[in-house]
């Protein structure tokens, strides 16, 4: 019964659309603390206090998908299959699969070609991208995840993850 009662609340937050983030919250969301090697770490307190919105909010995940195209992520990573950049679909993460690692990868870049996007996109947009990129390589599907694009089909849609079965083989490169 309790879980049934909680269901609408969960759905509630899942469907919320915050079209403009409060500036103090956005500033606080930038405050991630990583381990010394830049992989893993603690998310900002406000991120947890908000209920980890960028991982389970349908609108933010969808915005992430839009930004993924708009900021040219497809140029190197394609639609998750990888090209000059590593693939996401295989579920193999060189720099960690947790949100903080992905956030830092996008904001600060990584060695061997990943540029730092912190200069071009806002913190909220980085978080939206983080949530989306994590969905691509997820091991189980999220009902809040976006669905296919109106494009040539290159992969199963995100809400039907896991996109690959028996992934977990390290990439050959």
């Amino acid at each position, binding site marked *: 019964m309790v879980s049934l009662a909680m269901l609408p609340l969960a759905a*509630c937050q899942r*469907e919320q659309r915050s079209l403009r983030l409060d500036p103090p919250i956005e500033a606080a969301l930038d405050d991630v603390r990583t381990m010394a090697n830049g992989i893993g770490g603690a998310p900002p307190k406000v991120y947890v206090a908000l209920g980890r919105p960028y991982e389970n909010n*349908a*609108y933010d995940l969808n915005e992430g998908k839009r930004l993924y195209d708009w900021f040219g992520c497809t140029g190197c990573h394609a639609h998750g299959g990888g090209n000059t950049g590593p693939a996401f679909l295989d579920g193999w993460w060189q720099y960690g699969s947790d949100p903080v690692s992905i956030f830092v990868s996008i904001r600060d870049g990584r060695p061997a070609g990943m540029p730092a996007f912190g200069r071009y996109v806002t913190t909220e947009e980085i978080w939206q991208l983080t949530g989306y990129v994590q969905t691509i390589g997820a091991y189980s599907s999220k009902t809040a995840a976006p669905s296919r694009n109106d494009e040539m089909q290159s992969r199963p849609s995100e809400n039907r993850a896991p996109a690959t079965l028996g992934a977990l083989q390290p990439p050959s490169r």
Partner: protein
Amino acid sequence: MSTSDIAPDARDTALQEKALAERLASLWATPRGILGALSTVDHKIIGRRYIVTAFIFLLLGGVLALAIRIQLARPENRFLGADIYNQVFTVHGSNMMFLFAVPVMEAFGVYLVPLMVGTRNIAFPRLNAFSYWIYLAGGITLWAALALDMGPDIGWFAYVPLSGPQFGAGKRADIWAQMITFTELSALAVAVEIVVTVFKQRAPGMSLDRIPLFVWSMLVTSFLIIMAMPAIMVASTTLILDRLVGTHFYNPAEGGDVLLWQHLFWFFGHPEVYIIFLPAVGMVSSIVTTFARRPIVGYLPLVLALFATGILAFGLWVHHMFVVGLPRVGESFFTASSMAIAVPNGIQIFCWLATLWDGRPQFRTPLLFVVAFIITFVIGGLTGVMVASVPLDTQVHDTYFVVAHFHYVLIGGAVFPLLGAVYYWYPKIVGRMMNERLGRWVVALLFVGFNLTFFPMHILGLIGMPRRVYTYGPEMHWGGLNLFVSLSAVILAVGFVLFFYDAIRSAFSGEIAPENPWGAPTLEWATSSPPPSCNFERIPVVSGSYPLWEEPHALSVATGLRINRRELLVTSISDASPQARESSPRNSIWPFLAAIASTVMLLSSIFSPWAVVWGSVPIAVTLIMWFWPKGTPEDIS
């Protein structure tokens, strides 16, 4: 309800009036208690529920309309905000079309058609019960979604790609599509029931040329539903498949077609307008006949106009799509057909005017609503002919001119007759009269409030205000007219509040209604108010179009029906000569349980396609129990 003390073949001829009434009451009654309420198959109880539920949705949708008007009352208003505004206008439109207008018209059909054709229950009464529960579930789905901030935000037409997988984030569009599935399911069920009731259960002697016009209009409406609704069910199902499973029906890059959605939607969407309008036409004909005190002028042209409207309704859907880019021939064809539909509607208007002209009209509240309808609907019809022409439509497309037009034809063309019908049939349904003095106030407030609210929208549209915008800049100079519209909406709202007040108060303290308070000619007035559970203790036999005017003192009846099971007469299609005695199904809880199982399946399938597989098992179980054979013959000829 077989009882041992009655011979298996006992007939009603052997019983006196009082004993027969008691016997039939126990045979057809709905048991008290919650189980009885959930398992009833009485078309009057279900029809009443339908009407009340639909009017609750009208009230809720009206609240949303007021919220919209507050938001638009002045430029740069911050009452709702863009996201909530999108949800509010979408739910307002979807609610009014799918949860109010269509169901309330069907509801009147469910209540009145069996009474008007002189039978004891609607055909397929358990399907009728099922359809109500499904409708209720669909309505709750939509409103619960809005309350949870996940209401659809894609307009009531849900065009792809906005509603498609790429741009329709979250489950909002799925809620809309599934709500469509619910309401179409219930509408199709009711349509089938009404067609069979009208074709096979008419009182002996009610040949095709003696069918009351309201029944004709419900028959044509039902055929429209049967032919139009499958298109939208295909559309909503393929939309969900695109969104959930990742199919490519509406993906141009993979060979799908975005425009396919618009064709499927409007192939349903335009007949939908007539599904709402034609029953209203039937109501107007009933009211005009009764209050003009003479047979309607032009019965045959009126029936033919219903059919002409019904057929033409399927040939003009493309006029909603004039600006998507069509070949010239297509534009010309659909312009011509759109204008042609004004002809049958014009014929009807002239028939009513002639009836009133030649009769001795008594201007009671229902007839006042008809007068309000005629004026408002003619204005809406004129703007309809205007937007049927491609150049003008290209100019005013997606502006408030269109908003004004369709509110004129929907409120003026359907809601005014509907409210007239409520005043007209309220005594039959409730057993008490509504207040005549309040009724006149309601008509006046609604008519004035409506025209002051919606007429300025024509001008707003012509000076360029687009539809669906959540706000506008002060430099557009739309503020003054919008404020005027919003203030006028208050008058309209007061009229509706007064109507609801009158309807609720009269149910408790209205004057007790006699059998036939208006001196009307059709069969529903031949039984008590409200009717007994069996409708007619003896099935009437009809020898003319206006039975209660032709045989005012005692109606001929048919006898010889069995009294140890629910039995009614099956008659032939054209001249309604008796063919068989058929048993009518008893109360059953299984339609309710089947509706619950269907609801669980349909709602879960928003989240996982596997829900269709596993959810079909409980549905199959409930359907098997519902149709469990009884081992008795169903009809005896």
